[in-house]
C-alpha cells in the first residue's frame, strides 16, 4: 500500500521534471556552499593543531633560558641529576617562497606518542641525515642539498631532523629549549640548584593562532550559512508548490482511506529520498568548491595571521555524513510548513495554488514586527559592545531586520511609484506587482541579502585596498631591503654602502612579551625619512624629536587598541623597564602587537636582538642591487627591492580577498536562481490573473513584456533598498568586526562605480531570470488561457 501511495505521489515529480530539478538543484547548492565552507574550516584547523603539536612536543612544558640558548653541559647536568628532558634545536632554513621551520630533535629522549618521539621515526631508514617533511614542504625544499623523507603527517612548513643534522645546518650554538617529559622521578633536586638560569615555560597551545583565526573562520561560516539560507528559499518554494499542486491527490488518497499520519510519513520518506540524492550531489559540489578555494584561503591565513595551511584537502567521513545531515535538516526545515498543513488538512480541502502564493497582509505586519525586534537587537548589540560575538550579533540582526522589512518596504515603494503610472495597464501593473510580492518575497529577500553582502564586503575590501596601498606607499620608506649572514657581514656591508647609498637604516628587532601577549620590538635609527613618511594615528607633538633623543616608544594600532594605550601612557617592556608611549601608528596585516623604540635603546636593552636586516635609501636601487650581488657578493635571495616587496604585499592582499569575492559571486548566483525558480513557479499559477487581461485585448507579447519589466522593477527596487543595508554592513565590518578581529579600524570609502556595476549585474540577473517565464507566456497556446474561463479549477 505504501508503495502504491508513494508511486501516486512521486508521479507528480516525474510529470514536472523542471520542478524536480529546481528542488534538487536548490538543495544541492545549499548543501554545497555549506559543506564547502565547513571543509575549508576543518582543513585549516587541522593544520593549526598539527603545527602547535609539533612545535611544543604535544602540550608539554619546556625549560628555556630567557637570555639565550642552553649549552650542552647544562643538559648533561640536568640528566645526571635525574631530570628527564629532551633537547630541541629550533631554527629556520631558506626555502622556496620564504622559509621553513627546522626542528632538530633527539628521537631517543623525546617523549613517545608525540610528533617528534622515537616511535614516530621507526621505519624511517634514512633518518640519519635527512629532513622529514610533508609533500608540500618537500616541493619547496627541492633546492636543498639534503635528502628528504616525505611523510604527510608532518605539519606544513616544518622540517624535522635529527639533532646532529640541525646542528650542521644551523651551527652549534646550543639548544633552543629542553622538553620536560611527562613522567619525572618523584625525587629530584630543584631546578634552581642545578641550572638557576633556566625557567619553566608552560605549553604553548594552538590557542593563540586559533583565537586569531577564529574571526576569519567565523566570517566564512557566516557566509556559508547565508548561502545555505538562500538555497533553502529555493527548496521551500519548490516543496510548497508541489504540496499545493498535489492537494487533489492528497484529497483522493484520504478519500480512499489513507490516514493523514500515513500520508505525512510517506511525504517525509519522499523528501528524505530527495535529500539523499541532492545531499550527495551537494557534497561533491562542496568538495569542488572547497578545493578550488582552499589555495586562496591558505594565502589569506598566511597573509593575515602567519598561519600555515596546507593547500590540499583531506576529508573525514564525518564531513561527508554531516553534509548529508545538513541536507536532510534543510529539507525538513523548508518543508515543515507544508507537512503541518497536510497533517491538519480536512479530507476534502480544495486546491488553491493561488492562495498559497498570496500571503495575507497579516504576515507582512508580523514580518515587520519581527524586523523591528531584530533592529532593536542590533541597536542593543551596538550599544553594549561585547567583542567579536557582539559584532556578529549586530551583523546578523541587521541583515535579518532588513530582510524581514523588505516586503513592507517594497510594498510602500510600489505604492509611491504607482502614482506616476498612467493608464489602465499601468494601474493593473502596479496593483498586480504588489499582489505578487508575497509570492516573490522569499526570493527577493535572498536577493537583498546577497546584494547587501556584496555591497558591504565590497566596500570593506575596497576601503581596505585604498588604505592599504596608501599606507604601503608611505610605510615602505627604504628603496632596498637586505639581510646579512652575521655581524661581521653587517659591518662589511655598512662599509661597502657608505659611499654608494644615501642612508643605511638598521631594521633590528627582537621578540618578547608585552602585556602578556607576544609582540615585536623594533629599533629605528634617527633619520628624517621616518618622520616624513610614517603615518601616525596619534602622537605627542614632538614625537619624532623625542624618539631621536632616545626617549619613549611608538606602538602599533593593534596593541594600542587591545591595551587601551595612548600617548603619555607608560608601558612595561620585557627585561624590566618602562617606556613612555609617544605615538600610535597603523600597521595593517600584522597579527602581532609591535613596539618601536630608538635603535640605541634596542641595542642596549636587548643585546641578542636580530641585527641582520637593513633598509637602504638609494637613488638607483636597481643599480645598487646589481652592485651588491656582483661586487659585494651578497646572494640575490637576501636583497629585496621596495617595488617587489610592495607587489608581493599587494598580491597577498588580493588573494586574501579572492575567497570573499568568490563566495560573493556564488551567493549572488544562488539568489538569481531563487528568483528564476520563483518566477517560473508563479508563472504557472498566474494564468487566472493574466487570462482576463488577455481576453480583454492585451496580446500575449505585451503581457510577456510586462512580466519581464516587473522582474526588472522588483530587482531594481530591491537593489535600491540593498544599498543602505550594504553600507550599514560595511560600516559594521570596518568599525566593529575589523577592530575586534584584527585590532585596526579602517576609514570607509564609498565606491559608487562598484554599485553601478552591481546594480547592472543584478538587473541582468533578474532580466535573465524573467526572460524564460516571459517567453513561456508569449508562446503559451491561447487554448490554455481560454480554459481558465471554462473549466472548474
Amino acid at each position: 500500500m505504501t508503495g502504491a501511495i508513494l508511486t501516486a505521489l512521486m508521479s507528480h515529480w516525474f510529470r514536472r521534471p523542471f520542478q524536480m530539478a529546481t528542488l534538487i538543484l536548490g538543495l544541492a547548492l545549499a548543501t554545497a556552499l555549506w559543506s564547502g565552507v565547513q571543509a575549508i574550516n576543518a582543513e585549516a584547523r587541522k593544520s593549526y593543531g598539527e603545527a602547535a603539536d609539533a612545535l611544543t612536543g604535544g602540550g608539554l612544558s619546556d625549560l628555556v633560558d630567557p637570555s639565550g640558548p642552553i649549552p650542552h653541559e647544562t643538559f648533561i647536568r640536568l640528566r645526571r641529576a635525574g631530570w628527564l628532558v629532551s633537547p630541541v634545536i629550533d631554527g629556520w632554513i631558506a626555502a622556496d617562497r620564504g622559509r621553513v621551520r627546522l626542528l632538530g630533535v633527539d628521537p631517543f629522549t623525546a617523549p613517545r606518542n608525540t610528533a617528534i618521539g622515537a616511535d614516530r621515526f621507526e621505519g624511517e631508514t634514512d633518518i640519519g641525515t635527512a629532513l622529514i617533511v610533508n609533500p608540500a614542504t618537500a616541493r619547496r625544499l627541492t633546492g636543498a642539498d639534503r635528502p628528504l623523507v616525505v611523510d604527510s603527517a608532518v605539519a606544513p612548513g616544518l622540517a624535522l631532523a635529527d639533532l646532529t643534522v640541525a646542528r650542521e645546518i644551523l651551527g652549534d650554538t646550543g639548544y633552543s629549549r629542553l622538553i620536560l617529559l611527562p613522567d619525572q622521578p618523584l625525587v629530584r633536586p630543584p631546578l634552581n640548584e642545578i641550572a638557576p638560569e633556566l625557567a619553566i615555560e608552560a605549553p604553548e597551545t594552538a590557542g593563540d593562532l586559533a583565537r586569531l583565526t577564529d574571526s576569519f573562520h567565523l566570517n566564512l561560516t557566516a557566509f556559508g550559512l547565508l548561502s545555505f539560507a538562500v538555497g533553502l528559499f529555493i527548496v521551500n518554494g519548490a516543496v510548497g508548490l508541489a504540496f499545493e499542486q498535489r492537494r487533489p491527490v492528497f484529497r483522493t488518497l484520504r478519500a480512499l482511506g489513507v490516514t493523514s499520519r500515513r500520508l505525512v510519513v510517506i511525504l517525509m520518506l519522499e523528501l528524505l529520498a530527495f535529500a539523499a540524492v541532492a545531499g550527495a550531489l551537494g557534497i561533491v559540489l562542496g568538495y569542488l568548491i572547497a578545493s578550488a578555494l582552499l589555495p586562496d584561503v591558505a594565502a589569506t591565513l598566511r597573509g593575515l595571521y602567519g598561519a600555515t595551511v596546507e593547500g590540499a584537502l583531506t576529508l573525514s567521513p564525518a564531513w561527508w555524513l554531516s553534509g548529508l545531515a545538513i541536507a536532510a535538516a534543510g529539507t525538513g526545515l523548508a518543508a515543515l510548513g507544508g507537512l503541518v498543513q497536510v497533517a491538519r488538512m480536512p479530507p476534502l480541502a480544495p486546491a488553491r495554488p493561488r492562495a498559497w502564493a498570496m500571503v495575507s497582509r497579516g504576515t507582512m505586519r508580523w514580518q515587520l514586527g519581527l524586523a523591528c525586534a531584530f533592529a532593536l537587537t542590533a541597536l542593543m548589540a551596538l550599544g553594549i559592545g561585547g567583542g567579536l560575538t557582539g559584532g556578529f550579533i549586530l551583523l546578523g540582526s541587521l541583515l535579518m531586520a532588513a530582510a524581514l522589512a523588505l516586503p513592507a518596504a517594497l510594498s510602500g515603494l510600489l505604492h509611491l511609484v504607482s502614482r506616476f503610472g498612467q493608464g489602465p495597464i499601468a494601474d493593473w501593473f502596479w496593483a498586480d506587482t504588489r499582489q505578487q510580492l508575497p509570492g516573490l518575497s522569499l526570493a527577493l529577500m535572498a536577493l537583498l541579502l546577497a546584494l547587501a553582502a556584496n555591497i558591504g564586503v565590497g566596500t570593506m575590501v575596497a576601503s581596505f585596498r585604498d588604505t592599504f596601498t596608501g599606507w604601503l606607499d608611505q610605510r615602505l620608506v627604504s628603496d632596498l631591503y637586505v639581510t646579512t649572514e652575521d655581524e661581521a657581514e653587517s659591518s662589511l656591508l655598512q662599509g661597502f654602502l657608505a659611499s654608494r647609498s644615501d642612508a643605511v637604516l638598521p631594521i633590528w628587532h627582537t621578540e618578547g612579551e608585552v602585556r602578556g601577549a607576544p609582540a615585536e620590538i623594533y629599533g629605528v635609527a634617527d633619520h628624517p625619512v621616518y618622520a616624513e613618511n610614517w603615518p601616525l594615528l596619534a602622537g605627542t607633538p614632538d614625537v619624532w624629536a623625542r624618539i631621536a633623543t632616545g626617549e619613549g616608544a611608538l606602538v602599533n594600532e593593534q596593541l594600542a587598541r587591545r591595551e587601551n594605550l595612548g600617548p603619555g601612557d607608560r608601558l612595561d617592556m620585557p627585561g624590566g623597564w618602562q617606556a613612555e608611549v609617544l605615538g600610535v601608528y597603523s600597521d595593517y596585516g600584522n597579527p602581532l602587537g609591535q613596539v618601536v623604540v630608538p635603535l640605541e635603546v634596542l641595542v642596549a636593552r636587548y643585546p641578542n636582538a636580530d641585527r641582520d636586516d637593513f633598509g637602504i635609501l638609494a637613488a638607483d636601487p636597481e643599480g645598487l642591487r646589481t652592485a651588491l650581488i656582483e661586487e659585494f657578493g651578497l646572494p640575490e635571495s637576501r636583497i629585496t627591492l621596495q617595488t617587489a616587496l610592495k607587489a608581493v604585499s599587494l598580491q597577498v592582499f588580493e588573494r586574501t580577498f579572492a575567497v570573499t569575492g568568490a563566495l560573493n559571486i556564488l551567493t549572488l548566483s544562488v539568489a538569481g536562481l531563487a528568483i528564476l525558480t520563483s518566477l517560473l513557479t508563479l508563472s504557472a499559477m498566474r494564468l487566472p490573473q493574466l487570462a482576463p487581461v488577455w481576453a480583454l485585448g492585451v496580446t500575449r507579447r505585451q503581457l510577456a513584456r510586462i512580466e519581464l519589466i516587473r522582474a526588472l522593477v522588483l530587482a531594481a527596487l530591491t537593489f535600491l533598498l540593498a544599498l543602505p543595508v550594504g553600507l550599514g554592513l560595511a560600516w559594521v565590518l570596518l568599525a566593529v568586526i575589523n577592530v575586534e578581529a584584527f585590532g585596526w579600524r579602517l576609514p570607509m570609502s564609498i565606491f559608487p562605480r562598484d554599485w553601478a556595476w552591481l546594480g547592472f549585474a543584478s538587473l541582468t540577473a533578474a532580466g535573465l531570470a524573467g526572460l524564460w517565464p516571459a517567453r513561456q507566456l508569449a508562446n503559451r497556446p491561447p487554448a490554455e488561457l481560454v480554459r481558465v474561463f471554462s473549466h472548474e479549477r
Partner: protein
Amino acid sequence: MLLCVETLEKHFPGTAAPVLDGVSMSLEAGEVVALTGESGSGKSTLLHIVAGLEPADGGSVRIEGAELAGMDDAGRARLRRTSIGIVFQQFNLIPSLTVAQNLAFQARLAERTEGLDLPRLAAALGLTDHLAKYPEELSGGQQQRVAIGRAIAPRPRLLMADEPTGNLDESTGKAVFDLLLGQARETGAGLLIVTHSERLAAAADRRLHLSRGKIAT
C-alpha cells in the same frame, strides 16, 4: 451586418468528429440571440472563435465586415479591446484590481472613458457599496455583475456571454440576465448569449441551437 459567421469549422486533435462542422449564423446590431445546445456541443468553442481567442480551421468570421482570419494577433487584440464585450461563466475579473478599477478597466483600455459615469453604472448594477472591494470579497452574482458592467462600459457593438448565469442560483441568474439584456438594449449592441436555461432563452429575440457541429434553428 454586425457579425457574420460562415461555414465555420473547428476540429480538436484527438477527437474523432469535428466540434464545429460548417456553422453559419449572423447577428444584427441591437439584436439578442440565445445560443443553446447540449454540453460539449461546441457553444463555448464558437464564442471563443468569434472573439478571436481561438483560431478556426475553416470558414470565416466577419465583425462589421472585417475578416478575423485576415488579422494578426495584435489586430484581434485591438478588436477585442474596442468592439467586443465578453462575459464568461466565471473568473472574469482581475483579482488584483478593485471593483471600481475592474469596471473601468476595459473602457480605459479602449480609450472610451468619455461619457463613462462610473457611479451611475455601479448604481445600475447594484454595486455602489462594493466599489472599493476586491473580487474575492464578492459573491458569485456580484462578480458576474461586475463582469457585465466592465463589458458594457466601453459601449462595444458586440456583446457576448458564455453561460454568465451558469454558476448562480435561479433568481440571481435571472437578475443578472435581465441586467445584461437591459444594458444591451440600452446601448444598442448585438448580444450573443449562451445559456442552458429555456426560460432565459425564451426572452431572446431569436434562438439558435447547436447540435452535432451544426446550427439548427
